[in-house]
Structures are given as structure tokens and as C-alpha cells.
């Protein structure tokens, strides 16, 4: 689904990524982990065409996103859903209107059907039906994230990008969101790419974990195998008290 090769990102003299390679397969949930400031979010933003790398190539769904025409770009955006860390809901619109924005923009469906689709998405992410007329400022953090997922799913994307989906949530909401992501993957056959620091999420739902360290992807492996690797940062990450606490055995 996504091939990144020889990627290089530099801001002035600061080199963020160098010689970075990553392949993501269809239907897997992959998490990108790394130190703060290691460029995880930048990598994500480069995949969704918000930032441009300095060199290298990124291919998403067969499209070379660094040399892309406007119509190809739209085609790609139509097939990807993005959920931002803070939700990035449009504050002036209600929940239902937020989810309907991509539908109005990209399809020619009647208002009635769009309302039905939004109602379905709201139910799908586990929100009660009456939330649809609320404004984002009236919602709790967990609900905002769910609405953001619903909006990302509005167009039935093949690819779902999540930036820190469980950050700032209480354990119950975080667990519920994890389960939601897993269920969506199974139901809709999504490919999910997420940046996360949540060790419980890593254990619970990821198929593979990509470690961004020393400016490149150091390893892409299922999490059980990662814990066996001998790398100082990874050791600190998984063998610290929090890392150990999250391990299921």
C-alpha cells in the first residue's frame, strides 16, 4: 500500500530523516514509534501530502506522491482518512455536519442519504445518536476523537492515518478506541498507520511496529520480536517500568 524509499528530510541544517525505508502492507495495523522530536509526525504528514520531504520517494496506493497531478492527489485524498491528534473538528459545525463535509465535497448524493450515512458512521464509532446535533465544544476529549475517526471514515477510505489516537484519553476511552480501530480494520479491511506512544495500544492492536531511531526506520517487526532486539533506546522503551507493565505476560 505504501512504499517509502531513501527518504530524506532536512530543515535547514537539521537532518530529521536520512535513508529511511518503509513498506506497509494491505490490511495491517502499523504503528510508528520513536523518541520525541524524532520526526514521527513529520513522516506521517509526508505520507498524507501535507509536508514535502527533501529527497527520496513515497508511493501511496501506487501513486508517487512527490510527483503527483492535482487530480491524482484528489483521488488519493478521497481514499485516505486522517485523524489528527487534537481531532481538528470544524468548531462551527455540528458533529453530523463535520462528518458530512467530505461527503458533500466528493459525492453527488442526496441530503437524505448523506444524513443516513453520517448517522451510520456515528453509530459505528460507538456514539449515541443524539450527539449528531452537538457542537465539538460540547464534547469530551474521547468523544472528539471518535467523531474525528468517524469523519476520517466518511468516504470509506482504504487507508486510515491516526496521529496519537489514544493520547490524552482515560484508560477506558483509550481501550474503547483501540477496540474500535481493531474492529474497523476487521469489518472494513482498512490499513491503519498510526503514530502512538501508548504501550497498551501497541500490544493490543498493532500487527507490526516501525521504530524510528537514528533518523531511519531501525526495525519493522511485530512487537514481541521488538522487545528481543538489542538497541539502547528500545531497551529503555520496553524494559522501563511502564514498558514492562504494559506487556501482557
Amino acid at each position: 500500500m505504501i512504499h517509502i524509499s531513501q527518504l530524506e528530510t532536512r530543515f535547514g541544517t537539521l537532518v530529521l530523516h536520512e535513508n529511511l525505508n518503509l513498506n506497509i502492507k494491505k490490511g495491517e495495523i502499523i504503528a510508528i514509534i520513536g523518541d520525541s522530536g524524532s520526526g514521527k509526525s513529520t513522516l506521517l504528514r509526508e505520507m498524507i501530502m501535507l509536508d514535502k520531504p527533501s529527497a527520496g520517494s513515497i508511493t501511496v496506493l501506487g501513486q508517487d506522491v512527490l510527483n503527483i497531478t492535482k487530480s491524482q492527489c484528489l483521488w488519493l485524498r478521497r481514499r485516505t482518512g486522517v485523524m489528527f491528534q487534537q481531532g481538528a473538528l470544524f468548531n462551527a459545525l455540528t458533529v453530523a455536519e463535520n462528518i458530512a463535509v467530505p461527503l458533500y465535497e466528493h459525492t453527488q448524493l442526496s441530503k437524505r442519504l448523506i444524513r443516513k450515512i453520517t448517522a451510520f458512521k456515528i453509530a459505528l464509532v460507538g456514539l449515541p445518536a443524539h450527539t449528531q446535533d452537538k457542537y465539538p465544544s460540547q464534547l469530551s476529549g474521547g468523544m472528539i476523537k471518535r467523531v474525528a475517526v468517524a469523519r476520517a471514515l466518511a468516504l470509506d477510505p482504504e487507508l486510515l492515518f491516526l496521529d496519537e489516537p489514544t493520547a490524552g484519553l482515560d484508560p477506558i476511552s483509550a481501550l474503547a478506541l483501540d477496540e474500535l480501530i481493531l474492529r474497523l480494520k476487521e469489518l472494513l479491511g482498512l490499513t491503519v498507520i498510526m503514530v502512538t506512544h501508548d504501550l497498551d495500544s501497541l500490544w493490543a492492536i498493532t500487527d507490526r511496529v516501525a521504530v524510528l531511531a537514528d533518523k531511519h526506520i531501525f526495525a519493522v517487526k511485530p512487537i514481541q520480536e521488538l522487545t528481543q532486539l538489542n538497541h539502547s533506546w528500545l531497551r529503555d522503551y520496553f524494559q522501563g517500568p511502564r514498558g514492562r507493565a504494559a506487556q501482557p505476560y
Partner: protein
Amino acid sequence: MTALFELKSNIVRYTGIWTLDTLDYQVERQLENISLAQKSTIIFDGDAIESMDSAAACLLFSTQKSLEKKGHTVIWQGFSANHTDLLHMIQKYVTPLNTPPVSPNMLEQIGRKTEQYVIQTVDFLAFVGESFWVSLQALVSPRHIRWKAVFSNIYSAGVTALPMISVLAFLMGVMLAYQGGRQLSLYGANIFIVDLVGITFLRELSPLLTAIMIAGRSGSAFTAQIGTMHLTHEIDALRTIGIAPMDLLMLPKLFALIIIMPLLTAFADIMGILGGMLIAYISFDVSISDFLERFPQAISLSHYLIGIGKAPVFAAVIAIVSCYQGFRVTGSADSVGKQVTISVVQSIFLVIIVDASFSILFNGVGL
């Protein structure tokens, strides 16, 4: 690459691609218009559907619903395992749509609006009272005033406004002298330009001009600043630290404007009269020395004092309105924009009303 279906006897056979890319309202309408003579069983045959997404599944379900409403029975048949899963999922989650709330009738709307305005007015008066009370407290114990904030506001709202106000006041003086001078010169009364420019500027024009400038320039900034701080919970943070937002955000702005407005007005007086003097000299043969000689004879000190005296009142109006609107920001960035607009419009509106009241008042006491 389209979503197709055909109706044969009582079988609806779907073919092609049923996704958001291919669906549009025409397909929806055709599906809605499926009709059969008598109540019967209809078979949805999905054997030939190449791909389907949740939007299409929603559509097929609502088609089923509308057919059932007409008394038909629907049987699903031939859908592939994946599509069946999707349909099951939709069936599980589709919830009955609640009807949109009916809009209230006119009487109710009038009532609600009136209530809103009354509450707003009371709210505003309460804010004015609170500002007054807080200012009094501050004046009683001046060491509690946050002088640093006062001075930074004096700089940002006053000093940096000087170039703009000087240019505008000068040009207003120029315009006034041109227009008035032309009429006066018809009667050979060129020297009265001094009276015209002097009285108009000192008494009315420069306090008003300054107030409008400051309302647009600083009032809007005050509202936006306080509003954004409200959105990001900075004001709540101040409260929890034990700093009263009124003390830190409102009072310094109020004091700063009250201090600088008379100064800016005096400055605008000077620039406006300079403009008038220049035009009187260039176009209407009133020499600078004649102008300066005539000035103290024609214009009594009271005009100047009235003009300067109005300035602090205008300053208070602008500061209180803009801070009040800032505290009223709720919810979103949209709200900031809305309240800034209201703040500028209201402060200019109130300044002009206050100015008119002053005119009536001074006329009454014969000043």
C-alpha cells in the same frame, strides 16, 4: 464503471460498481421509483455487484425500507460473503433518523430574541458596574495596579498609534479647510477658516476621530486577545493561580486608554490645525501669523477643554465594551471573529451616542 440495476418481473438485479464514486442522486431517485403493481415479494439480487461500500449498503437498506413501507417484502440473495458482512454491519448500526427539530414560530422567535437582548443588556450593565467597582478598589490602593501591563498597553495602544493618527488628523484638517474655505471666500471671510477649523477640530472632530481610530485599532485587539485567552483556558488558568482576570486584563487596558486618549486627542488637535493652517496659507491667503493671531481671539479655552474632557469618557466606553465582548467569546475561533466585529461596531456606536449626549448637555448649560 457505474452502478446499474434492472427490474425483471420481481427481481432487482444489481450490477457494476456500487461505491461513493459511482452513486449519485439519479441512482437514488431511480431506486426510489421502483414500483410493482401489487404487494409482492421482491428479490434483491447482488450476485453481479463488483464492489460495494458502506454508502451503497446504506442506500440499499433505505430502498428496502421504502419498499417495505409500500407493503412489499424484500429478500436478499446472491450477495458475496464480504458484501453480506458489510450489510450485516450496516443493519446493526443503522439507527432510525430522528426528525429535525421544527423551527419555532414567529412569536416565539420574537420572545426569545427579546429575552436574549434583555439578558445581554443586564449582563453588560453588570460588567460596567464590576469594572467601576474594580477601578475604585484599584484607585484606593494604587500599588495593586499592574503598572507594567498599563505601560505596555500605553505603548501598544498609544505610542504606536501616533503615526496613523497624525496622518489622518492632518488630512482631515486639510479637507476641512478646503471645503469650508471655498464657501467662506465667496464672502471674503477667509480669516474665519481659523474659527471653522479650530472649533470643529478642538471640540468635535479630533476626540471623535481618535476614538474611532482607537476603537478600530485597539478595541478589536483587546477583544481578540481576551477572547483567544478564554478559548485556550488561559483565563481559567489565571483564576486558579489566584490572579483576577479583571485586574490583569481589563484594568490596565482601561487605565491605559484613559491616560492616552486625551494625549492622542491633543496630538490630533495639533496635527489637524496644522493641516488647516497649511491650506489656509496656500489656497486662501491667510498667512501663518494671521492664523496664529486670530486663533486665541476666536477660540475660547472651553472648546479645547471640552474636547479633551470627552476623550477619557470615550476611552472608558471603548475599553469596557471591547473587554466585555472578549469575555463573551465561547466555543470556537468563529466566535472570536464575531465578537470582535460586535466590539468595534458597538464601541463606535456608543461613542457617537455619548458624544451626541454631551452636545445636548453642553448646549443646555450654555457652553
